[in-house]
């Protein structure tokens, strides 16, 4: 037996597989899912034209920090590479078993997924903060209005209860007078409005 036979029948010890680690494979799939979410975020940023949130960090996240096309294409490429890697490594399980190199690849994927993770977390935090602020403002106004309504309503009710009879008596007393006045005055008013029309007609006769 020669050295060649020994080398032909040997394997690098570091490449002998370890047991499949579910954390590694789950982490790899989680990283791929994060990249898909990132792609959706960038797609929304590319598609939206009017009325889109333009404040601060949300704008940066949705527009790829000012480079929407480049960020979108890059994310697409990484996802495709990840899917190819998933097929080749049988769902990342093979990569978890093949010594250093496979685990290094999964580790690199995990580190790379830290980018979209931080990105998405920042966007989520920003959205949550905005929502909380809006809800807080709306709640405050609502509470104020309800409080005001509750405090003022009895007074308003009492005012209405008190004023209504007065208005009624006033109306009952005033309306007949107004009616007689109208009946008396209306013909004179009509006559007053008709006289100018007559004068206009008389004055236009020579010019026909």
């Amino acid at each position, binding site marked *: *037996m*020669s*050295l*060649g*036979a*020994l*080398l032909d*029948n*040997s*394997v*690098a*010890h*570091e*490449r*002998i*597989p*370890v*047991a499949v*680690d*579910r*954390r*590694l494979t*789950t*982490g*790899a799939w*989680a*990283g791929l*899912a*994060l990249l898909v979410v990132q792609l959706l975020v960038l797609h929304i940023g590319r598609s939206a034209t009017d009325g889109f949130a333009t404040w601060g960090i949300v704008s940066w996240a949705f527009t790829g920090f000012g480079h929407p096309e480049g960020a979108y294409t890059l994310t697409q490429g990484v996802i495709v590479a990840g899917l190819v890697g998933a097929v080749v490594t049988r769902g990342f399980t093979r990569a*978890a078993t093949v*010594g*250093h190199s496979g*685990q*290094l690849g*999964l*580790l690199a994927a*995990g*580190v790379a*997924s*830290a980018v979209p*993770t931080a990105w998405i*977390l920042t966007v989520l935090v920003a959205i949550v903060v905005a929502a909380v602020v809006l809800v807080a403002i709306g709640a405050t106004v609502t509470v104020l209005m309800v409080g005001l309504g509750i405090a003022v309503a009895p007074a308003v009710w009492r005012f209405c209860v008190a004023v209504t009879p007065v208005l009624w008596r006033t109306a009952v007393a005033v309306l007949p007078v107004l009616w007689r006045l109208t009946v008396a005055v209306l013909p004179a008013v009509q006559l007053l409005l008709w006289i100018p029309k007559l004068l206009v007609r008389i004055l236009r006769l020579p010019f026909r």
Partner: protein
Amino acid sequence: MSDRPSTHAASRSGCRPRPAAFTAHPAPALVVTSADLLLAGSHGLDLPPARLEELRHQSRCTLAAAERARAPISCLGPGFVPDRPRLYPAAASDWVLTPLEDDPLHRNGRFPIPAKARRHLGRLHRARISFDDVLVAHEIPKDLAPSVLPVPAVGGAIELDPADLADLIVHPGPAPSTRRFAATAGNIAGAIGRLAGTAGKVVATAAVAPILTVGCLDPVIFGIQRIPGEPHAGVIYELVRWEW
């Protein structure tokens, strides 16, 4: 023992210092190193001075070729070379010395060799340094042999049947560095998974294989250059050694 090629001290001839005629010396009852295993069996090997000088020249050439290939080795001198596996009891552990063709790790086609040692052997092979045979010495736990052999291992060397080796020489499993790397990678993946909202659903499993409990196997690879006219003897070189 460390993961490095052997750097045995060399005399002017490049070989370990020997009595001038390479005559035998009594074999100790217990041996402590794998090199001593072969030296212990060298008693009775008498060679004429001319043949010794020829062997010295041959070993110098071999060592020089290995140096040029950046894969230094050490020469242990001529000695008897066992044709069958042997068990050598030692103080702290036992040793199994076997021709490569009988080694169970080699026979199953997946002999694990650390990458650094493998590169060293590859350089030797590419340098076309000729070795007629390869011997492998494995260290086994002290109490293993008596539990699997029909005859308790006491006293001197015991010749073994190749079929006995499968019980004595156990695969070391994944490398410790790979297991540590897998554990680290798994921890990072778990942390990312928790950030991504899969917390509580990622069941952390042990990223390491069960720790080898059989004991350490510290293989040593010997290269043998047969001596013409001496069917059971050869010039012995220690090529590489490592620890799992």
